[in-house]
């Protein structure tokens, strides 16, 4: 039996083997770093808010303004950095909400089953009947368009996916030997749910959450682009694209760099999620077969 530390070491080794996965990790680290440190590393931090300087309006990339300026004369680079802050915090909030709501529901539905279980899944099915973007959009119609409401709307659409994921996992593990053994020893349902089942379920959740981060960012920026999410002057990437769109193609930088930022961020999380999946999938098999 290898020790826990050795197991983690082995997984890290396997993770390192894939260049793409490491690249993903690097990108995520950079983005999260940018998000955390934005106020300190942005060259013109005040530009992230409602700042105007029409003399510097729509200047091309230069040494002072590495990514150029937008129509209000704000430094695009600083706004992109603060945009990372917004995207990451929004994404984290959405995922935390989704997991906190969705996972316990899935556990209950899967383990207890019966009437409770099927009612939960019925409700989940209703939410899942519509593509998440559509549902999030529909919800935004009922609320005032701002960042927080966008976050709530997306969470509203996102949590059922976790319920379904956990439900499926619990169903397949429920009948496994070690759960039976625990039950035979007299362990109560709560204990079984959290001690036996949850440890085997958290890795798919983690993988999904990592991959989802990218998709949530895409959805949020889409909402903002349509004007249903973050409002100007908030430097959300989608909002920035909507604003800068009018000045294409001549003044391309205002709309292009935010788009690139979204692309890189989503790519990073996808690569990282894929890498985690490669590492954990094998591990899951080992845990379950005991080899």
């Amino acid at each position, binding site marked *: 039996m290898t020790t826990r530390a050795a197991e983690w070491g082995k997984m890290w080794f396997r993770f390192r083997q894939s260049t793409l996965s490491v690249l993903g990790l690097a990108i995520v680290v950079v983005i999260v770093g940018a998000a955390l440190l934005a106020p300190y590393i942005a060259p013109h931090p005040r530009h992230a808010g409602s700042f105007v300087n029409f003399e510097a309006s729509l200047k091309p990339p230069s040494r002072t303004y590495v990514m150029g300026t937008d129509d209000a004369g704000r430094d695009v680079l600083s706004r992109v950095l603060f945009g990372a802050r917004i995207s990451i915090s929004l994404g984290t909030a959405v995922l935390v909400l989704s997991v906190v709501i969705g996972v316990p529901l899935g556990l209950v539905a899967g383990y207890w089953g019966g009437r409770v279980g099927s009612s939960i899944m019925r409700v989940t099915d209703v939410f899942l009947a519509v*593509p998440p973007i559509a549902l999030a959009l529909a919800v935004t*119609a009922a609320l005032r368009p701002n960042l927080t409401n966008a976050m709530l709307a997306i969470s509203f659409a996102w949590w059922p996916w976790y319920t379904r994921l956990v439900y499926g996992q619990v169903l397949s593990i429920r009948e496994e030997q070690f759960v039976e053994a625990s039950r035979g020893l007299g362990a109560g349902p709560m204990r079984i749910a959290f001690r036996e089942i949850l440890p085997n379920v958290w890795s798919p959740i983690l993988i999904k959450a990592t991959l989802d981060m990218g998709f949530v960012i895409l959805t949020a920026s889409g909402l903002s682009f349509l004007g249903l999410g973050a409002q100007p002057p908030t430097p959300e990437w989608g909002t920035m694209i909507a604003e800068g769109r009018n000045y294409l193609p001549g003044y391309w930088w205002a*709309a292009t760099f935010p788009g690139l930022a979204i692309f890189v961020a989503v790519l990073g999380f996808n690569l990282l999620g894929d890498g985690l999946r490669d590492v954990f999938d094998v591990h899951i098999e080992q845990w379950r077969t005991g080899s």
Partner: protein
Amino acid sequence: MSFRTYLLRRILHIIPVMVGLSILIFAISRVIPGDPVRLALGTEATIEQVEQLRHQMGLDRPLHVQYLNYVGGLLRGDFGYSLRTHRNVTKDLLDFFPATLELTTVAMLISIAVGVPLGIVSAVKKDSVGDHASRLIALGGVALPRFWLAILLQILFAYKLGLLPTIGRGPAPPVAITGLYLVDSLIVLDFRSFLISAKHIAMPAFALSVGTLAQIMRLIRASMIDETRRDYALAARSYGLPSNLIVYKYLLKNAFTATLTIIGLSYGFLLGNAFLVEYVFAWPGLAFYGVDALLFKDFNGVIAVTLVVGMAFALVNLLVDILYGYIDPRVRYGER
């Protein structure tokens, strides 16, 4: 349980889900903080006019009565009155739906037609330079914001190169049978009209397809590689069967069934992204109508669009399940 029973259960399952969805959306739409009636009539409207319209639309009734009225209307095929377009929403839906149907179908076809071959090639030439390159492109495709890509395409092909029209769907073909421009123009063999419609649909469909294309490619690749490891693949080789036969017939059919369910799910994401792509290209489809309804807070419009989207998604998934059962005999004969 037999396959027929399974299908029947699936079809019946859609009903309660749709009912639940209608309740959900209805409930959401009534939480509007603003006053849509006032918005529709404008700020000059008097209080009497607002009250009159509100009464006309039944908005002063209790919620559950409103809901029942609405469902009653639905069963008659009436989606209510749109405060924005001042028309019956049903009529609006009928006008706008074919455009979205055409766009999403073409996008799906592109995704499959390009994604599957690329996936096969990538799997067969595993770990080659081409494989790594296509995998990177696939990863990029999923990460690309669809609306951003749409804008870039617009700038490049329409604005700069002038090859394709910037926005819109273009003129309708002389006959309107299905409402799908491409199909209609082909039916009457009007190739000029076909070409014009094709040019209009090219960019939106492509922008919409990119993410799904990438997903399909990755999935086919993974499935094919999985299948190569199976015993029957080794057995087929041991009988001396040529590798082309093995790859394109034996492996592909198995890999495809694995991918089929995901294709159904991807359609959902395609529908979701249609809202953004239609908006950018001013494509006169259901999603575009939906965005307008959202911005205007025209709740009847919003509910109608959501329900139709939900229904379409459910139908596609059902179709996928039927197809799956048709291809994979294990499903038909009850073994899993």
